[in-house]
């Protein structure tokens, strides 16, 4: 899985797209790994741009939870932004909106997380 990155307002934005189902979640884990390794104090906050994600399954959500936990353990900043409406519903139904930092838009996230 290819995860393009760019920097905006001191935040490392990672574009995620497609369907993150039980099969894709393993690749998603691997693709996130090097990015999470750098999610530490002194490095830009890591923000996943979810505007291109059409679907996420329980396995995909679990990957996000583990990523968030790892970042927190390293005292790094990790968040998600710009969820499509249906994906946002999945987050609410699964209660992931309560355990993951989610922002309505990239701009809103960058305002809070950026330097």
């Amino acid at each position, binding site marked *: 899985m290819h995860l393009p990155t760019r920097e905006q307002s001191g935040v490392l934005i990672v574009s995620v797209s497609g369907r993150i189902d*039980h*099969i894709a*979640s*393993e690749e998603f884990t691997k693709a996130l790994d090097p990015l999470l390794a750098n999610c530490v104090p002194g490095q830009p906050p890591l923000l996943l741009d979810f505007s291109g994600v059409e*679907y996420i*399954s*329980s*396995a995909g*959500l*679990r990957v996000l*939870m583990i990523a968030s*936990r790892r970042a927190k353990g390293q005292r790094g900043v990790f968040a998600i932004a710009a969820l499509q409406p*249906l994906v946002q*519903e*999945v987050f*609410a*139904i*699964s*209660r*992931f909106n*309560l*355990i993951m930092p989610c922002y309505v838009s990239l701009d809103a996230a960058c305002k809070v997380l950026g330097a």
Partner: protein
Amino acid sequence: MKKVCFWGTRGSLPVSLTARDVREKIISALTAANGKSFKTPAALNEFVATLPFSTTGTFGGNSSCVEIINGGAEHFICDMGSGARPLGQAKIATYGVPNPQTYHIFISHLHWDHLMGFPYFAPMYIPGNRIVIHGCHARLEEAIRLQMRSPCFPVDYSQAGARIEFDLMTPDKAHYIAGINVTPKLQLHAGDSYGYRFESIERTVVYSTDCEHQLDDLVEREACVKFFAGADLVIFDAMYSLAEAVSVKADWGHSSNVVGVELCQAAGARRLALFHHEPAHDDIQLNRLLAETRRLEQITRGDQPALEVISAYDGLTVTL
């Protein structure tokens, strides 16, 4: 198999409505009535039918006990939670005494909430009845006897009037029992639990409670999808939200509504019953959980046929 009747649907611990819960239901009903007057009982009933289930009813508080109604004198029951008490009373009321019956009881695991109803299951005290307790745990008989021994219980196991037999089943093997093929499957839970797949010529029911699904274990996922394949009804442990199940309550041995929908969709099951409700959830929360689960099924269905989602409650009978 014709019907499934839920006698106990609560997880972990039996619960009951409190005075405050009842008061809130009355307030909700009167608020909805908004000063209306009802000239006849029929008009009143019509109005009550428009109210949500969380106002007019309750999901109930007995722990796990589910009956699969097959017709005839051989009865199929999953687990002996506290719901076994009203089930036993209903059987005595229906068949009277003496009228020998055979009860096949399938035990998911030996935790107390799944066994505690057995000493209150009235048919066990009636001579002439035959009770066959099926399960996969080597200590099944020991566990059943243990809770009917001083100082835990005033009536000793030896006082049972019925003939009680134990049948140690082999997981992943179909056992032909009174016209039904029953296949147990090992599940992830402290001390192990077992799900059961019941297959008759025309219908399939899966009882799968107290099971945690490891979301990164694709082999186990496929095994589970196969176990649920084409089922007319899957009774599924939906105790926690997905967020709880993978974070603070990981390794607690339970699952979520989200995983239930995903597995049933992958398995092409026809109907999903949310089961083993969290004891801390009230009727409003459980109603909301059902509505959200139906919405999840709708937005993730794709081109597949719709999966019907229901939430089990004490006293619910489902026609297969």
